[in-house]
């Protein structure tokens, strides 16, 4: 199996260009959570000319709605949610400097085009590995939209968050190439 590449957030364009579909990575640094309802609010804020409640430049958004933390835990179980629901919102955020997204499942062509045009990368986390992933999160705090509960935007400090580069900034797509490799006619 390929070596695990260690990467730090925020990501630069050079960092992103260096990542290739199929590589395993471990991510450290600050990332933000946002899913359906938070994305709608983020785009509404942008449309109204307001600033975003997260550092978008070089940033990474993790598509997740965590469980509540058990006593002594930083955060509850928090595996990736299905990413295609965020496809209508992602290109706008990529245009504004978002460099990485973490989720599960394929993305549409508009998202991939924006990733190629602006050098962004899409990481797949293991869907269903929610308890294991929680262990890589060292600090969590709600920074926006607390009324959304699990869907609020959280700032996470992560250490060695395990992911796979699923779609890289050249548009190489493991959801297509991986499936093709194992398809039996």
């Amino acid at each position: 199996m390929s070596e695990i590449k260690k990467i730090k957030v925020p990501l630069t364009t050079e960092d992103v260009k260096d990542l290739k579909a199929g590589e395993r990575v471990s991510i450290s640094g600050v990332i933000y959570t946002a899913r359906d309802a938070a994305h709608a609010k983020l785009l509404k804020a942008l449309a109204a000319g307001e600033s975003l409640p997260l550092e978008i430049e070089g940033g990474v958004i993790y598509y997740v709605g965590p469980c509540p933390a058990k006593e002594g835990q930083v955060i509850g179980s928090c595996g990736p949610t299905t990413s295609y629901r965020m496809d209508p919102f992602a290109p706008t955020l990529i245009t504004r400097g978002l460099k990485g997204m973490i989720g599960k499942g394929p993305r549409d062509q508009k998202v991939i085009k924006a990733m190629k045009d602006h050098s962004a990368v899409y990481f797949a986390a293991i869907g269903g590995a929610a308890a294991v992933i929680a262990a890589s999160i060292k600090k969590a705090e709600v920074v926006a939209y607390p009324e959304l509960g699990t869907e609020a935007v959280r700032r996470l400090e992560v250490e060695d968050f395990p992911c796979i580069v699923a779609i890289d900034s050249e548009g190489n797509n493991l959801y297509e190439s991986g499936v093709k490799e194992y398809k039996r006619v």
Partner: protein
Amino acid sequence: MKEIKAGKITEEVKRLCIEAACDLPEDVETLLRQAETKEESEFGCYSLEKVIENFELARRDMVPMCQDTGIVVVYVELGTEVDVVDLSLNDAINEGVRQAYVSHPLRKSVVTDPLFDRKNTGDNTPAIIYTELVPGDQLKIQILPKGAGSENMGALKMLKPADGVEGVKDFVINTVVGAGGNPCPPVIVGVGIGGTMDKATMLAKKALARDVGEHHPDARYQELEKEILTEINKSGVGPQGLGGRITALEVRIETFPTHIATLPVAVNLNCHAARHKEVIL
């Protein structure tokens, strides 16, 4: 008549909800461990390893194996000689769901109005409750917390009777393969054939509550379950949709008589964390 107190039902539903979220049934565990030995792709093996490590950790610490602790689907078989006292059956069940999701670190994932308000109800109620009257003095409650990642990939098709076995096969296979990595494969595939539009979807979901290794009683459908599984696993989708041999763990068909003019087929998917628990009172 046998009296069953609502408080007892609430207590049992609460326990089942917590156990279902944190403790993967052993039969599903066995399926996943077998899948890991059969998988050939690098990422497939890696992700199955992580999934196995995850449910072991969840069970040890009694934390949810997946952050999507679902909307709770409840199948009730109510004996005609059972009298539920103190509260209605549905209220007793919903109270159990509420207590489980409020007292334990389970995610509340239910919103009130589906289109306009979408405000979280805060306690994961209401549950989706199906009650069937059966002879006898027992009350059976089966809990199936259903995550939306896999639920969103379900589909229904009203086939023509002339579409036959091939039509059914094509529709089921295309639905599962088309879902790709979205429903967290390897999946369990629930298939409902027959009845009406609504009945077929209910059969497909009920199939997900079946135990591993339990097959349709008719040998022809057993064969069909096997054939569809083999075809799905030729697709290359694999664990997490990143390529591999094991896309589905089981195909489960449920059937019901239908109208002369129709052949409804529904597909309901469950991710690899096929959570279900039951109790008989």
